[in-house]
């Protein structure tokens, strides 16, 4: 498949990267592993004339117990978490991303910022042209929810929910310096589905930070997909909890693969803190999550099925977490 011409920049320091990003703000994309961006470029989706490659910027790499560099590959992270036996939910999620071949180059930052997906978007240029383009690329209407204002493409990254439930923070650098924000605030739910991140033009992800409390959580991540060896999530459920015997001290739950944003459900889990686990509470929580999510018809599995399975997966993810030591 043909890639259109672009200019490739290969900075070797963070400051040089930020300078380039400033110069080409709005006309450039960052290139990390390229396993999301390059397929999209091959399909002529939202091309930009400049690519700023991050693989030589050492400040962005590295993995340690409380900091995962943005350009750490998923393969690297998988090996590290396996050896360190830390963050079981994140470890579940990372081994379920794509395939070992993809994980060899795919990065953590790219995973958190992976583009949203839709049947009508992830198609060749010819295919999209035949149907008439859509809002997200080259067009002015949505084929899934007929209107012209908002895109409903699905967020299909596996790591975001798993990291959100352990209160991970992201470090972001840009022209105005470095800042930190909770990962869940990186996703801007007030956007139109196309602008969906709280990142200014030219800002990049430097690292993910894990607070020390994250290591006191039991956690798990469960993913629904068509081929167990392979596919993007049709649904992903992450849970984390700190308990004292049967009493829940802290509980977090997040889902991905269902809507345009990964989403944490504090309004449903906060009332359970201080309570004891019971079959009934788990069933009610699962039903409430299932009722709240709004998948649309833009992935392989039917939205009603994904909605129902959200409840099933909440129960299974909690079960898996509770039967896990540590």
């Amino acid at each position, binding site marked *: *498949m043909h890639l259109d011409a672009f*200019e490739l920049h290969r900075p070797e320091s963070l400051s040089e990267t930020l300078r380039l990003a400033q110069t080409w703000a709005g006309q450039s994309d960052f290139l990390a592993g*390229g*396993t999301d961006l390059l397929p999209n470029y091959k399909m002529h989706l939202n091309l930009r004339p400049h690519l700023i*490659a991050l693989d030589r910027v050492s400040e962005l790499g590295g993995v340690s117990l409380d900091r995962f560099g943005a350009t750490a590959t998923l393969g690297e992270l998988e090996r590290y978490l396996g050896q360190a036996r830390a963050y079981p939910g994140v470890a579940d999620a990372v081994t379920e991303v794509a395939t070992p*071949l*993809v994980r060899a*180059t795919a990065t953590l930052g790219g995973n958190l910022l992976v583009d949203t997906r839709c049947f009508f978007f992830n198609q060749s240029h010819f295919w999209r042209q035949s149907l008439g383009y859509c809002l997200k690329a080259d067009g002015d209407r949505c084929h899934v929810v007929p209107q012209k204002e908002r895109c409903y493409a699905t967020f299909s990254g596996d790591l975001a929910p798993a990291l959100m439930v352990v209160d991970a923070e992201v470090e972001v650098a840009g022209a105005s310096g470095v800042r930190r924000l909770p990962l869940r605030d990186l996703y801007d739910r007030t956007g139109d589905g196309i602008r969906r991140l709280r990142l200014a033009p030219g800002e990049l992800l430097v690292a993910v930070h894990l607070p020390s409390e994250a290591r006191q959580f039991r956690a798990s991540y469960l993913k629904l997909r068509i081929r167990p*060896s*392979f596919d993007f999530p049709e649904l992903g459920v992450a849970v984390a909890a700190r308990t004292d015997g049967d009493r829940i001290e802290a509980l977090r739950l997040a889902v991905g693969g269902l809507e345009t944003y990964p989403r944490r459900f504090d309004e449903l889990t906060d009332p359970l803190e201080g309570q004891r686990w019971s079959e009934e509470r788990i069933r009610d929580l699962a039903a409430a999550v299932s009722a709240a999510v709004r998948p649309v018809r833009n992935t392989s599995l039917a939205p009603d099925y994904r909605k129902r399975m959200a409840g099933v997966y909440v129960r299974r993810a909690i079960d898996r977490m509770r039967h896990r030591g540590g």
Partner: protein
Amino acid sequence: MSTRTVPIRFQLNGLPVERSIPPERILLDLIRDELRLTGTKRGCDLGTCGCCTVLLDGTPVLSCLTLAARADGRSVTTIEGIMTGGRLHPVQAAFVECGATQCGFCTPGFVLTAVALLRENPHPDRATIVRAISGNLCRCTGYTKIVRAIERASEVAP
């Protein structure tokens, strides 16, 4: 946008290569179309099939999703580069012996993935093998003989 070329130097199957390439050149295209090593196959061109697998500094990667510029300063091994002294690599020999190939289109990718696996883990169990090859698709064999061949190679490995 004017396309400038970028100079790259890398080792391909142990031999030095120097080239000037457009920045958007994909490694798979460089290997097949310019360097004429057609053992590396183009299947999906989108990262899903594993036919285009090559070793980059010993790690299996998808050459269809790798810019050729990323090979600069590194070593690339393709299926043409794993025989020694005119003898098949033990993994290749095991594929022949076990009949692990039918149309053969996926075979170079499987062989390179298996070579890298056995280097890291000379005696993997079956589950580890199945996981390691989960990014390589075969539409002919049903995988049984491929897994068997990798087990066989691990038995005869030095």
